[in-house]
């Protein structure tokens, strides 16, 4: 039945319309801005444990967009570069969360067990590998490529979003002499200085989002 009163219609149209618009535009978002609150999310890891960003309040957090089959990711894992970073960050108390936004059937997506096997094979030192098969968190952060790195400070502020370093290449030789933006950002931020390069264009394979 039609409602007795039309009064609820204009507010309903406004709310519904805005919600639809918000959802539509959210999907086109370019990610949050530096210096603003990092968007909250909750994702399950490959062991079924739920991780909410709030769980890490008061701690430094790194988000790494991951696709083990991507040659650019391969450069950092096959050379041991990423694992060394993960280890040294862990020593400083930084929580490192790798996020896989590949959709099922696309490159980089694996069932949790297979993902664990790959992580063990690569010797990943990330705290957890989170699964984002619908790409919701990836799009929320505007993740474009693998790898793409995000640094969040203990207050939950986004400090860095972008490439891991300044050598956009998949050749292992490009690691030599590369300036690692993430390391620089963490060092500056931890010593209370402003981050000199808070963003850079991420390089690598495109994130294999759901169509």
């Amino acid at each position: 039945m039609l409602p007795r009163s039309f009064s609820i219609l204009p507010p309903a149209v406004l709310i519904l319309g805005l919600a639809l618009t918000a959802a539509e535009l959210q999907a086109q978002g370019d990610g949050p801005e530096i210096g603003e609150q990092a968007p909250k999310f909750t994702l399950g890891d490959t062991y079924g444990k739920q991780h909410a960003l709030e769980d890490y309040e008061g701690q430094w957090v790194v988000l790494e967009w991951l696709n083990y089959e991507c040659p650019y990711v391969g450069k950092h894992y096959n050379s041991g570069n990423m694992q060394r970073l993960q280890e040294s960050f862990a020593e400083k108390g930084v929580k490192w969360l790798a996020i896989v936004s590949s959709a099922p059937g696309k490159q980089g997506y694996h069932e949790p067990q297979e993902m664990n096997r790959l992580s063990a094979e690569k010797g990943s030192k990330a705290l957890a590998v989170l699964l984002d098969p619908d790409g919701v968190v990836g799009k929320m952060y505007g993740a474009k490529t693998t790898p793409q790195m995000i640094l969040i400070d203990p207050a939950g502020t986004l400090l860095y979003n972008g490439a891991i370093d300044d050598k956009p290449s998949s050749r292992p030789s490009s690691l030599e002499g590369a300036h690692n933006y993430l390391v620089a950002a963490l060092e500056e931020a931890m010593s209370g200085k402003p981050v000199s390069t808070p963003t850079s264009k991420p390089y690598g394979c495109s994130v294999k989002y759901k169509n």
Partner: protein
Amino acid sequence: MPKADHSLIEPRAAARMTGLVLTLGFLFGEQLYAQGAEDLSPHSEAQLVAEVRAIAPGEPFTAALRLVMDEGWHSYWVNPGDAGTPASIEWSLPRGFEVGPIQWPYPERIEVPPLMSYGYFNEVLLLVEITPPADLALDMPVALEAGAYWLVCSDICLPAEQQLRLVLPVAEAAEPDDRWTGSFTATRDRLPVSVEGWDIRAERTSTGYRLSIIPLGEETAWEGDPYYFPRDEAVVSPSAPQAVSRRGSHLLLSLQESSYSSGPATRLEGVLLAPQGEAWDKDGRVRALAVDVAVTEPAGGDALQAGSGTGNLTLAVALVFALIGGSLLNLMPCVFPVLSIKVLGFVNQAGEDRFKAGAHGVAFAIGVVLSFLALAGVILLLRSGGSRLGWGFQLQSPAFVAAVAILLFALALNLMGLFEVGTVLTRLGGRVAQPQSYVDSLSSGVLATLIATPCTAPFMGTALGFALTQPMLQTLLVFGALGLGMAIPYVVVSASPALLRLLPKPGAWMETTRQLLAFPLFGTVIWLVWVFARQTGVNGAAHLLTALMMLAFATWVLGRWKAQLIDARTRLVSRAVVLVALGLAVGLAARGTRAEAAAAGSTQWQPFSQELVQQLRAAGQPVFIDFTAAWCLSCQVNEQVVLASRVIEDAFVEHNVATLKADWTRFDPVITSALESFGRSGVPLYVFYPADLARSPVVLPTILTKRGVLDVLQDVASSDLQAPAAAAITR
């Protein structure tokens, strides 16, 4: 395996060497084959080519890295877009040689939502100018060597590399190499160039940049829009839509700043691609216009789009501007119908007691302010998600436009008296003398805001430009002030008996006015449908219009069988019909928002001309012609059901059929005479020409079936195969 019998090395040694090579390969395998693949350049091949067969000392020549990619694979432009890496060349040239930068032809857009890349499919030549030293010896051939590194992607990406070598003799004068002339010419046509007659300007805005494209000569009447490829990465967001607006002869392109930019750019460098089928120059050759302009800060006055230039505005001033702008909003054409309707409401309230009238005014104001705050809230929410929005952003969403169109259409029908429902709409019309609830007043405030959003009033732009660059609290304050400003006139009128008394007494004139006011609302609906059509295409608009018709039907049923006058059974049936019609309306509107994607098949239809038919057949291709028109319903059915079906599209590809469309939507003498030549005076007509020029065309039936089309394709294509020689000889 080395072929020992052709080798000077004896077989056993060869075997040993093979072993050594394998061992070395194993040792270096990790570096050499990072992909674990044997092929260093998967799905693509690279080659060094030169425009000349021989080079001359001191005389610059053009060489190119030629990349040929498998079908469906692409490599990248100098700015790869959201992901990817452009090709690079590491030259090792003989002493004294100088090499220029890569000249990149304009790329294609490769869209994989939410990402956008720029790159090349099939084949591309990356041009480089090389200058040999003036003292080059004439007798020794020169070897140009280079390592090429590129990324080749389809849905996955693979890095590729190849060591290349090109040996060229040295002669007194350079000789062109006609093997490559065509490729080089085609590539040069794709290089961005400057064209006289265009003035390009770039301006900073609150969300990025605005390119003004100003024709100095005659105006263009382009149907499509140009696209800007930013050359530098991290300046303009590749995936953000480029909104195009027209101001007189000026084309304005809104570009969103990349979220990875390190600050505002001082120059914009890139390529402006003319819309499909258009060109920047008179000869129609130049499709890619080179852009390299300084970015200027906008001069004031146009603060809505510009945003900055409000930098020294204080919050207090912005709030005052918002209040003034908000109240002026009431005079803008889009709000005017609401204002008039509201005034009618006041006429009714005039009889009520003073306190009640005032309280309704306040409830209305609360409705307006809350809606403005809701808008601000969504803007802030999306801003935290990285989107940067302006006023009226919600109209960028087809779903929102459709919802508002439906609401306003229903309101207009109600004003016309087609049906009566509940309270708020009739209340707005001031028809029923029952007490109005405060919720209704609040709700009419929301409605007023909904209708107001497409408009901007003076002063408002400045205030908004300020608000959108401010932290949360300030943004909310300015939006609240805008709402307050819009509501103030109503509050004042409803709270002041003196003013209410000025209004005419209620009477028959109100019914007339009420019906008259439906027309500006119909006007607004027309405008919204037009916006919707721009967003979703003509099919989407047809869906929305059909939805409106279903809505009109539902309201007619409601008005024809009024609740008070019918028995329980009629009530049940009629209301069920209403629900079904409304459901259909919503469903149709929702489908309309996604109409465009569904409308187009993947077959490429070229515009019809007799010459093209001859050319294609002469080149050995059979030709299928679809004589059609937008207003021809059976044409549309045939196209959607048969021609755009997967089976037929595949069959076209399989038999290498060229597909032409003769669009007779508007009068066209060429198509008319072509139709006459087949004894027809109208569409649809489907004609299939065999490649063999000696054979006559087959006319297909007016109502197509997949089976029928497949049979014809099969027959004609197979007989073409039997007589290819004959085809060549006949002309």
